[in-house]
């Protein structure tokens, strides 16, 4: 990496809930290939940080920019097609896994793209799952499996930044390792990509991240 421009940059970011600051004064610059852990005790606002970066919530202080352009100048659907937040408890639509994967192509932002079944099957094989997983109904999925579907749904759209919120918290060890493998292979294919990752698992933090940002709730 010979000094490329930062993909994601924050300057003095602060998030307030009612009158108390969850965190403030947060600054960072992330570059292609970065693997970032978001670390802090429960309730410190790690999820809130990911939500602010994804533009689902606003920061009360500071600015955030992506590809050198301030967030407020981005059209949100376009921005969020490149910076995708994967919530810890994603809610899927009623229907099969495959229907959920295909559904996003109805959005105007993806109207030029089409669903690639082969690619999904390839991802599934990396996750150690068969093609019949696509036929499963949303109601038959465990919390961890729903997260996998949400991850695949995002992955097929070739995002640049992925914001993982405890992506393996509801998976067993093998499934978690498989998911990590898939994240690795995504990052190798997408040379400009980077991700943020929250977890309470120290070993995973070591495996999956090279740098960490620490946040904690400031006494108000």
């Amino acid at each position, binding site marked *: 990496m010979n000094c490329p421009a930062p993909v994601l940059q924050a300057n003095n970011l602060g998030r307030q809930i009612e009158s108390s600051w969850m965190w403030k004064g947060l600054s960072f610059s992330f570059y292609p290939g970065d693997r970032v852990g978001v670390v802090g005790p429960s309730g410190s606002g790690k999820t809130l940080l990911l939500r602010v970066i994804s533009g*689902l919530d606003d920061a009360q202080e500071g600015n955030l920019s992506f590809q050198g352009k301030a967030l407020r100048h981005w059209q949100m659907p*376009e921005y969020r097609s490149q910076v995708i937040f994967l919530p810890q408890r994603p809610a899927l639509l009623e229907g099969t896994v495959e229907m959920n994967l295909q559904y*996003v192509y109805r959005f105007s932002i*993806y109207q030029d793209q089409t669903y690639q079944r082969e690619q999904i099957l390839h991802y599934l094989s990396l996750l150690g799952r068969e093609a019949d997983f696509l036929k499963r109904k949303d109601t038959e999925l465990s919390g961890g499996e729903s997260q996998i579907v949400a991850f695949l*749904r995002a992955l097929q759209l070739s995002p640049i930044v992925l914001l993982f919120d405890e992506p393996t918290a509801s998976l067993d060890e093998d499934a978690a390792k498989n998911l990590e493998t898939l994240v690795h292979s995504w990052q190798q294919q997408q040379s400009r990509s980077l991700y943020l990752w929250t977890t309470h698992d120290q070993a995973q933090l070591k495996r999956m991240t090279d740098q960490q940002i620490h946040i904690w709730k400031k006494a108000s």
Partner: protein
Amino acid sequence: MTSDYIAMGPWQLAFAAALILINLIFSMMLKLQLEKMLWVASLRMVSQLLLLGYVLEWIFALQNFVMILGLALMMATVASVSAVSRTRRRFGTIYLSSFMSVAVSSCFITSIALAGIVQIEPWYHPQYFFPLLGMVLGNTLNGISLALDRFMEDLSARQNQIESLLAIGATRWEAAHDSVKEAARTGMIPIINSMMVMGIVSLPGMMTGQILAGALPLDAVYYQIVIVFMIASASALGVILIILMAFHCLLNTRHQLCTARLHTKPSGKRK
């Protein structure tokens, strides 16, 4: 339509009131403790209607357009407050949104119908304007109230789903479209249901009244058809308006779902 109907006098009213005495006696014999409620309800009904009779005589003599408009807006205000009072959640501009959708839909449809269909001169002739507006308002407020309640409940219940979709690039409209659709459907159910069985299961009150007053059944039916179409189109318009206004308040132009703007009514009571 001449006045070949049997007018009711004080004697007839007294006799009708006596019918309720039977119930009072039963209630006392069986210790049902319904007497007080029956008594209060009867008194309220009689006094409210008598008052209305006098007010209507005064209203029907109105010639001044501004007075008529003012009265219509007052009725719309009461209807819009009552539409909100039946919902469980609130947002900042809910009363304004409710008033706008109630007033615009009802006044617009009633005026169009009077000017274009009934073709009365002037189109705001109070004897036609207020009874029709009243019927349209009463039904529209029902639809608006149901749609509004459903929309807010749906957004709260589906918050995760909507945000999951927003987070991967859906516009606010794409992400919340299911909730919009459900709310619109819910708001239209009462009028659709009543149209489905009208004339078979239910005999509309207005039509019955006209027939009792001596109108030919077919004439009364024609009138009723016009009214039902007015109610249906005003309901649809009001439902669409209230959903769009709530949508714009609760999902902003940054494509964020602002559930923080929704709060539950303190008592949480529904009528």
